[in-house]
């Protein structure tokens, strides 16, 4: 602590340079925290729901290839399967294409059983089941469009040749998936042309014992292996991951951009710190002459550099946290980043990286400055 004053004063010895460096680091870490949080959001999306005790049966050819309703009963008879629920991706939008969000037709009678992690008032659930054109919506959609129970909404077609006309009967809560809409599978099946009827793109099933997931998956896929509609049964996590993969390797892209940004900040900080260390060669020599050991001088310099990058990082992360508390990213990104925020683990990772940036960027200048002999340092005219 007794050295803190020296560190603090050196930190702001060139106020303009320090402030510019701080601002630069803050801006870069604002983006790093943002990108890492988007990655974290994707990971949460993959991990959403009960995950381990839910399996998804889809066509082994492509997710776009439907499976016949008749599979439901056969899947239900597989030992270890607790219940089965049909789920169809609709892909419609609300009023304008920019108002896109996830919307599904779901087997209204099985939803509660298979998707038990979706919390909804029992009365609202009963109303939903009772209304053929009823739907339930996530809390985030309600906020985004100012909907309330009883509102009539019409979705615009994109994949199927009809515009779903729905009445909001319930609002569900979910830890991650807060921006989706579900309506009756029976309504969907009646609205589509005969050649499409009685087919669905996924069966979601709950299992009694998650440790038997692999065996159940194998048994289901073996059952339909030589049929017209072969299946691929995966865990919910694998399904969500493959769904994410359809967007391209966006995680790799974001991860790479974050790494590049950190690398860039290391280089920029290294330049600033080299200048700072170079200016102080004589002072460092004086400190060593009066008895400061090399290790102590280096510790003081690295502490100073790390404090600078940490302060910049903290400023960037805090700024991002505050901004995303105010800016509704779900709305801004048309539902792409629903529930987006700077997650605590991401913030910690960014802050840890900022300290590391100081140590890496300041390492070489500090070593060079402290390894110079006292005599050479005193002789140096900066």
């Amino acid at each position, binding site marked *: 602590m007794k050295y803190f004053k020296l560190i603090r004063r050196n930190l702001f*010895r060139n106020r303009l340079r320090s402030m510019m460096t701080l601002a630069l680091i803050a801006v870069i870490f604002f983006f790093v925290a943002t990108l890492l949080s988007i990655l974290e959001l994707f990971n949460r999306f993959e991990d959403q729901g009960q995950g381990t005790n839910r399996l998804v049966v889809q066509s082994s050819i492509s997710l776009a290839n439907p499976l016949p309703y008749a599979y439901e009963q056969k899947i239900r008879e597989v030992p270890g399967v607790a219940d089965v629920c049909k789920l169809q991706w609709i892909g419609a939008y609300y009023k304008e294409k920019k108002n896109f969000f996830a919307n599904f037709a779901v087997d209204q009678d099985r939803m509660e059983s298979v998707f038990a992690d979706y919390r909804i008032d029992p009365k609202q659930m009963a109303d939903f089941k009772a209304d053929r054109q009823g739907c339930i919506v996530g809390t985030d959609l309600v906020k985004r469009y100012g909907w309330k129970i009883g509102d009539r909404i019409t979705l615009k077609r994109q994949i199927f040749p009809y515009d779903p006309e729905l009445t909001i009967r319930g609002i569900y809560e979910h830890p991650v998936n807060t921006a989706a809409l579900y309506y009756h599978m029976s309504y969907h099946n009646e609205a589509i042309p005969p050649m499409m009827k009685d087919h669905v793109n996924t069966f979601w099933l709950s299992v009694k014992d998650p440790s038997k997931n692999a065996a159940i998956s194998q048994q289901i896929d073996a059952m339909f292996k030589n049929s017209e509609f072969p299946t691929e049964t995966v865990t919910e996590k694998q399904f969500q991951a493959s769904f994410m993969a359809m967007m391209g390797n966006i995680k790799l892209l974001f991860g790479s951009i974050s790494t590049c940004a950190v690398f860039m900040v290391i280089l920029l900080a290294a330049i600033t710190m080299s200048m700072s260390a170079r200016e102080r060669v004589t002072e460092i020599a004086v400190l060593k002459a*009066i*008895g400061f050991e090399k290790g102590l001088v280096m510790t003081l310099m690295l502490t100073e550099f790390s404090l600078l990058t940490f302060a910049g990082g903290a400023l960037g992360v805090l700024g991002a946290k505050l901004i995303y508390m105010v800016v509704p990213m779900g709305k801004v990104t048309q539902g792409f980043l629903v529930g987006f925020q700077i997650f605590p683990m991401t913030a910690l990772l960014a802050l840890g990286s900022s300290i590391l940036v100081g140590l890496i960027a300041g390492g070489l200048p500090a070593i060079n400055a402290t390894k110079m*002999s006292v005599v050479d340092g005193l002789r140096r005219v900066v």
Partner: protein
Amino acid sequence: MALVEVKEVHKVYKRDSFEVPVLNGISLSVGEGDFLALMGPSGSGKTTLLNLIAGIDRPTRGTIAVDGREISNFSETALAGWRARHIGFIFQMYNLIPVLNAFENVELPLLLTKLSKKERREHVETALRIVGLADRMKHYPRQLSGGQEQRVAIARAIVTDPSILVADEPTGDLDAKNAAETLDLLQHLNTDFKKTIVMVTHDPKAAGFARRTLHLEKGQIIEDTANGARAQA
């Protein structure tokens, strides 16, 4: 009794593939309470000799003992600790830390000790009082004149009560008045506080404040004279 014993010291600097001999077998003794001036033309080796005595450089050959301890064999860490306890530095360009005020500059060497904050304050105030700058404690180097800066540097040199003060051209950057005041202060420290001082200077007038003057040329002592009547500011 000799406080500093320099025996057959050689110093050779390597510049690329060349070897430049700077000191050629110098031997000398500096007694406790002595005030020694090192004079000589540029390149004569006087600053190198001062650096060796201060423990910030090592001889190529020969030995240097201070207070009976052979310092040329100390490790770098041990030498740093030894300097903190035994040596006070005064530089030509003062070399104060610009971001610290006078008080904080003088306090720097005390940060390496186990003294409490209160004790450090007492020591710093005493040192600044001795150099006549008790009323300039909160001033930063840029707010002080050259002479005042050098006095702060002297306060920093004496605050740990070291055995030896080494001064490299302490008046080289000062006007005549401030130079005289600085030399007077050094003489005062030598006479009244019994500080052993080794000072490098080009200026014969400055050397006149010392008790003894060594003249170096080409890395060898060519003259060792005692100053009978010391100069007065």
